[in-house]
């Protein structure tokens, strides 16, 4: 391997300083996405930021607020209430979940052969807030805004109010790898607001506002959801199949949300 400048911060403060404006830096947290890219020669980082010891891992719950450090392994989320816990438990396998991090999952670019970022949908459904650093310093914003423009940012923490009820429904493709072709998360906030979001119907997770507007009627909400997405073909499912399936997943998620409310 050619010389690569690897920064290994030992605290969140050091991580922020090392990342700077993010220019030319490859961030490695769990390594599950980046390392194969390096192994296969598709990525040759000149400077890398290794987050393994940066103190950005951990889940805290207090006063109805959940805060998740960006370098928290997915394995630490599996016992959280739906939709977050079941969504995390649905990713890959036990060993990968012990290694892959929340930040890597949320910040992953669109995958070519299979969707990435399973947790994006679940976190959008609970109305998560993203705290990140980069050019212009630290900022906190709704996850939706962060997902639209996440290049050049280092995610530090995600937080959300625990929902009153949540549901997670996935369309899995039984195979050696538990890649998820598409998944829908729904959550009812303490004030009764229902948020619905999908992963796998676009380049990243997204809310389904047309479905949310009809959340009282699961079947109608399912049909309405099609207005909000532009699904794509990939190795797991065709766009046609995704359009046929999305209404079913939305209906099931909302039906389950009613059952657990």
């Amino acid at each position, binding site marked *: *391997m050619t*010389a*690569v400048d*690897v920064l*290994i911060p030992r605290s969140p403060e050091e991580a922020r300083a090392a990342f700077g404006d993010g220019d030319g830096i490859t961030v*490695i947290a*769990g*390594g*599950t996405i980046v*390392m*194969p890219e*390096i*192994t*296969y020669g598709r990525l040759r*980082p000149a400077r*890398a930021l*290794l987050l*393994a*010891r940066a103190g950005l891992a951990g889940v805290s719950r207090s006063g109805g607020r959940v805060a998740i450090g960006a370098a928290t392994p997915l394995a630490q989320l599996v016992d959280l209430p739906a939709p977050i816990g079941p969504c995390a438990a649905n990713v*890959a*396998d*036990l*060993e*990968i979940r*012990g*290694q892959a991090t929340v930040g890597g999952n949320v910040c992953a670019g669109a995958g070519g052969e299979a969707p990435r970022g399973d947790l994006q949908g679940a976190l959008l459904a609970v109305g998560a807030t993203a705290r990140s650093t980069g050019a212009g310093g630290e900022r906190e914003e709704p996850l939706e805004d962060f997902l639209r423009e996440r290049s050049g940012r280092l995610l530090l923490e995600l937080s959300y109010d625990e929902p009153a009820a949540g549901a997670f429904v996935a369309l899995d493709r039984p195979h*050696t*790898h*538990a890649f998820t072709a598409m998944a829908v998360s729904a959550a009812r906030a303490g004030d009764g607001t229902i948020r619905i979001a999908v992963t796998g119907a676009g380049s990243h997770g997204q809310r389904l506002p047309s479905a949310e507007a009809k959340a009282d009627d699961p079947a109608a909400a399912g049909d309405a959801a099609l207005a909000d997405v532009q699904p794509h073909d990939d190795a797991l499912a065709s766009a046609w199949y995704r359009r046929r399936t999305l209404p079913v997943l939305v209906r099931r998620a909302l039906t389950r949300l009613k059952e657990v409310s």
Partner: protein
Amino acid sequence: MNLTVNGAVHDVDCGPLTTLLDVLREDLGVTSPKAGCEQGGCGTCTVLVDGEPRRACLTPVAAVDGAEITTVEGLGTPDELAPVQQAFTHYYAAQCGFCTSGMMLAAHAYVEHGGSDDREAIQEALGGHVCRCTGYVKVIEAVAALARGDEFDLATTAASPGMTNIGGVR
């Protein structure tokens, strides 16, 4: 950087993003972890990092500087097999053997963490390990017996000579 591999401390002099798998196989000559898919999808490179099963192919060595690494070589010896090796031998839970190192380390960690003989729980624990001989049934039987604490009398296991070399494929 240094690594403790099966109890022996090694100074490691290589690029910090070199995979743990490359360091083990190429620099330290520890060849039980296999280079299968090298993208985290098959489980043949799984080793224990401080007791937890991890994919060595996905792990930059700098991330495990100072850690204790356990491979199959550290579980038992040909004369004194570890319980997981006895279980796999007794149940003939290996065919070509390429996936066996990873399978045994995942099984070992599963039982060390108090895993039961429940079939679904075993499947979940070993779900990241692919056997292209498709020999899963015997593996699950072996792990279930291990979890129950069965004792194995390998003298009565009609083993062919090669069977006791599980994990020895180079």
